[in-house]
């Protein structure tokens, strides 16, 4: 299964990005192959609709779970429809690596 994690940077030591739609990077982690892929978020500075555009990007990658700090209003019903689970991390100091360790 693939999990998307919002990240502030492009490596495993980066902290989680608390914003979903406007995060700096998406990390796509595959729980079966243990591979990670870092994607620059082109919607970071979108004037509007960053959330739905980011859902589209992450869903396109086949992610079934998203780990982030918070999710906007517009996308919750979309994610429900796509059967993608939202996981909210309250501790924004957590690194991408520590989140991946929790998923293992």
């Amino acid at each position, binding site marked *: 299964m693939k999990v998307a994690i919002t990240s502030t940077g492009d490596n495993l030591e980066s902290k989680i990005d608390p914003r979903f739609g406007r995060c700096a990077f998406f990390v796509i982690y595959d729980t079966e192959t243990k591979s990670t892929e870092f994607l620059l978020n082109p*919607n970071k500075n*979108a*004037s*509007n*609709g*960053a959330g*739905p*555009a980011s*859902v*589209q990007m992450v*869903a*396109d990658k086949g992610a079934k779970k998203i780990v982030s700090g918070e999710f906007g209003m*517009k996308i919750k019903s*979309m994610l429900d*429809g*796509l059967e993608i689970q939202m996981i909210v991390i309250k501790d924004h100091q957590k690194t991408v690596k520590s989140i991946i360790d929790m998923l293992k």
Partner: protein
Amino acid sequence: MEELILKNKNIKIAIASGKGGTGKTLLSTSLFSVLKNNYDNVCLVDCDAEEPNSGIFLNKELISTDIVTQRVPVIDTDKCTYCGKCHDYCSYNAIFILPPYKIIRVINELCHGCGACTVACEFGALTEIDYEQGTVSEYKIKDTQSRFVESRMKVGVMSPVDVIKAGLKKGGDKGIVIYDAPPGTSCPFIHTVTKVDFVVLITEPTPFGLSDLKQSVETLKTMDKNYGVVINRAGLGNDDVYAYLKENNIPLLIEIPFDREIANHYSKAEIASEYMPDFSDKLNNMFEKIIKEHGNSSN
């Protein structure tokens, strides 16, 4: 004779401020009240469509309410091939599409109604329907010929601009039209002041009032607008706003004192100028000066 000249003039004045809570509605309703007693055809338009509240102060009768709509696309999924062209044409991320899952959806709140997606679709899968943006209501003020127009945006809509424009249109071009502008210096403000003859900027003599006044002034300069400043809550804060006005040759129209009596009236939704003859006279003088210098003859 002079009064006759004034009565034959048309003018549109916006009451605006960069900072919220400086007294736009206080000034708008008070000025409107003074003018409706002195002139025949006066209209107040509440352009603060996100939170209109001038109407609360007025004794009024509803004439009509119009629904303001925008065109948004609907997708016929039987005709859609999930090619993604409509999504590519959309500059506002309003079309959500996942071709592998055969999912396509319009996010009405993000749509700007530009119609590009319907042009993009080669399969006739997109048609347009009306989507409500808000309402414009027109009222008659009791026992006068004056009118009040209220723009009210629907909660969840992206931008109040369409609703504001509909309100401005309903306000019309004849006689004296006062716009209670939305706060700030972004699109809602710009659209409100685009066609006015004069902008009254209201501020308070605090660092916050000054900071936001500067933004308003810079914006109006680029628009080539005539403007002047009303200082509300005079006596509070410091003299920096006065120094700024002097340095930049910006006319100080009137000062409204920091006075508990005004706040008391306001908190009961009473129009301050109706209880305070001094304030009423000041507003009338301010208006006469503005219309002499900036009003357009109706001839």
